[in-house]
């Protein structure tokens, strides 16, 4: 060995060591990638391999740049408490792992650390892996993103190989480009979330199932089955009911592949579906189906009452009173259930419609939403074309995601969550949609089908079709969608003025016997009948909708002070008027000393003593000052003259006490915790 090579080796060691000290997991990922990724390039023609290598390289560089950008953005926040998380779920997983690390390494901890580290909530195999990595390799907020990126890339390349053999180069490369650069999936792939691992497990299941079904040798089939089973087991706790969803997905795919083998098997499958629907109509089975739908509906209603941008699938009345799924007493009729299911299916494809977007962040999602519509549209074309090319792979890809899509559609109620969880199905459907594009491209030279496209693939002999499609998407579709957003979006609720209004009998009736402090006339925009109002954190007695610009809010009895008026849609705050509600002093306008005559049996009158207070008179002074002599009356009752101090307010017909005119001869009730006695006012003292 020459001295030169010894020095070069030492320098290489120093560089690797320094990299390892800064990010141990990054070195591990690079080492693993150096071994694994070249294997994905094997077995392709030269040109395809070159393109694949470039796509992989661009995908890696883009992710490295994104992670580097995150590092720079987070620079001011780097300290011992830094988690590196950019969402609540990421923060929970990382903080749980780091709490466990502190406990294992003997760092100062509290009871809450033990509680979180051992909590059943959020326990899954990804958190276990995350914890081991944090314990062994130290806090790894950025290296972990690299690891997740590597898992995601590996999963994409596994499906690419399946799609390449099934549909050919065009569809496979199209699908790979979609999966690797779809914005939401891109963000996913470098997150701290469990989704990349779940995607890898799903890709391994599909690869294993296709391999096991296609292989000729028993050993090879066994390997395919073993891979699929191991991946299913690994994914078992990464999502709720992951085993059921994965098993049902594979079964759906294989049954579909078998059913669509010939016209006869297809007819048999249709008969079986009809029989299944008929069985579901049997009352006992129907009740179980309804029970399942009611459980799903409770979950959905619960999701609507979470912070974020919610959407509703049930009839509007079901969202009036927020309740957790466990506490919900929701029931559905058959009609309500049918509407719920239809809305759920439509919502999974359509929501958020362009005009439903509410914030600038959601608006930035508009192009991706249009691309999603395109993907779904192409799925119909691609499904037929892909079925002709490879029935098994298409059935497994589509069947695998169907149960997941159904569960998500029925239970989700939050737009942000839907966008995130839709990412569970896009990586599988993208290949089938891409097969649709490839199939369309193959028919271009068919003049009978494509009269506007010449034999060089140009639209009207001028623009290349592919370029025209991209230009149409950017120049036509996105502006149209933005226009619909501007025109049809729901006006955001806003409060422009809050003013006191006189309380009438109507409001007292609406208050249902509760004491009313005030009635507020609220003016603004975007009011809806289902809104709720609170005064700071105190719920209003009622939000009485008049029109989108006007509503009344009935305020319960409150202490003196200035309060915010807040409007909620479910649990989502939609408008706030700071310090707009002024509750003045509750003291009566006038205090008089009066004499009242009470009539009751002797034993009741004996309870009346000087110093008694009227227990119902909130904020009003009604105090017994002096008790006179009892005078026997007829029918076993006596009368008792009592001197009281009474707080009065100005009202209709003069001075009033508890909504009754207070004057000589008027009825009067004295109620304490020990008695309620009727009487009349003898001297009002006005």
């Amino acid at each position, binding site marked *: 060995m020459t001295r030169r090579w010894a020095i070069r080796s030492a320098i290489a060691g120093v560089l690797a060591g320094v990299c390892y000290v800064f990010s141990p997991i990054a070195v591990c990922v690079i080492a693993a990638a150096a071994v694994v990724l070249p294997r994905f390039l094997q077995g392709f023609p030269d040109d395809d391999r070159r393109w694949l290598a470039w796509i992989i390289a661009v995908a890696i560089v883009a992710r490295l740049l994104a992670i580097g950008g995150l590092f720079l953005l987070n620079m001011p926040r780097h300290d011992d408490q830094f988690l590196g998380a950019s969402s609540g779920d990421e923060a929970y997983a990382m903080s749980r792992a780091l709490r466990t690390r502190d406990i294992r390494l003997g760092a100062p901890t509290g009871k809450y650390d033990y509680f979180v580290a051992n909590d059943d909530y959020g326990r899954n195999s990804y958190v276990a892996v995350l914890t081991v990595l944090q314990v062994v390799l*130290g806090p790894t907020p950025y290296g972990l993103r690299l690891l997740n990126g590597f898992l995601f890339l590996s999963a994409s390349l596994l499906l690419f190989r399946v799609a390449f053999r099934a549909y050919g180069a065009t569809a496979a490369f199209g699908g790979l480009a979609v999966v690797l650069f779809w914005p939401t999936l891109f963000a996913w792939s470098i997150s701290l979330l469990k989704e990349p691992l779940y995607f890898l497990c799903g890709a391994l299941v599909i690869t294993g199932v296709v391999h096991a079904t296609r292989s000729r040798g028993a050993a090879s089939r066994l390997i395919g089955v073993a891979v699929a089973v191991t991946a299913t087991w690994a994914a078992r706790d990464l999502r709720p009911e992951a085993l059921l969803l994965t098993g049902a997905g594979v079964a759906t795919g294989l049954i579909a592949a078998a059913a669509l083998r010939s016209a006869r098997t297809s007819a048999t499958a249709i008969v079986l579906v009809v029989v299944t629907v008929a069985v579901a109509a049997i009352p006992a089975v129907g009740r179980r189906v309804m029970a399942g739908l009611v459980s799903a509906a409770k979950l959905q209603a619960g999701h609507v009452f979470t912070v974020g941008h919610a959407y509703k699938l049930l009839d509007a009345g079901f969202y009036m009173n927020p309740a957790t799924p466990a506490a919900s007493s929701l029931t559905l009729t058959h009609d309500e259930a049918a509407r719920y299911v239809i809305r759920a299916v439509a919502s999974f494809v359509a929501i958020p419609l362009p005009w439903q977007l509410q914030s600038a962040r959601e608006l930035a999602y508009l192009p991706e939403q249009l691309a999603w519509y395109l993907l779904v549209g192409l799925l119909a074309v691609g499904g037929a074309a892909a079925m002709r090319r490879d029935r098994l792979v298409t059935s497994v890809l589509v069947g695998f995601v169907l149960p997941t899509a159904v569960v998500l559609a029925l239970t989700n109620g939050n737009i942000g969550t839907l966008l995130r969880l839709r990412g569970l199905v896009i990586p599988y459907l993208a290949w089938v949609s891409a097969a649709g594009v490839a199939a369309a491209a193959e028919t271009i030279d068919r003049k009978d089908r494509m009269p506007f496209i010449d034999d060089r693939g140009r639209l009207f002999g001028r623009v290349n079709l592919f370029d025209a499609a991209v230009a149409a998407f950017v120049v036509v579709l996105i502006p149209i969608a933005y226009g619909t957003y501007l025109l049809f979006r729901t006006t955001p609720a806003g409060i422009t003025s809050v003013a006191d209004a006189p309380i009438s009998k109507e409001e007292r009736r609406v208050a249902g016997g509760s004491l009313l402090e005030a009635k507020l006339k609220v003016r603004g925009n975007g009011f809806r009948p289902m809104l709720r109002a609170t005064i700071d954190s105190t719920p209003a007695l009622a939000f009485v909708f008049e029109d989108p610009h006007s509503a009344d809010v009935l305020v319960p009895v409150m202490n003196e002070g200035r309060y915010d008026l807040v409007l909620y849609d479910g649990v989502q705050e939609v408008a706030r008027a700071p310090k707009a509600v002024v509750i003045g002093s509750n003291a009566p306008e006038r205090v008089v000393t009066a004499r009242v005559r009470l009539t009751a049996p002797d034993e009741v009158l004996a309870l009346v003593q000087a110093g008694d207070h009227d227990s119902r008179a909130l904020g009003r002074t009604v105090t017994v000052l002096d008790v006179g002599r009892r005078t026997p009356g007829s029918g076993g009752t006596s009368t008792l003259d009592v001197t009281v101090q009474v707080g009065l307010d100005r009202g209709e017909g003069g001075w009033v006490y508890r909504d009754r005119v207070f004057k000589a001869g008027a009825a009067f009730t004295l109620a304490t915790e020990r008695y309620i006695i009727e009487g009349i006012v003898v001297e009002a003292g006005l």
Partner: protein
Amino acid sequence: MIERSAIVQALTKARDVAARGLRESAVARRVRVLSGEFGALPPCVKAQCVAIAAAVGLVVVVLGVSQLPTAQRPVLPLASGIFLALCCIALAAPFRE
């Protein structure tokens, strides 16, 4: 048809330009020469090189990690062992026959 697309043509051109740039850059040329020379070494010398790199790397890791604040420090013995193994794989993998 796809090959005549302006977008695909632009992508292809970008790919070729980047590939040429990468091929002709001084760093890439130096790496290629080095890896070529390394590949031509006898297997026993390659093994010695990997062993030296791993040993030096291990020393750097131990020294570097000991300088980190406690809250940031990985578990030393296990981490070093992992590093040693991974270093060997990473250095040897690209140059395997």
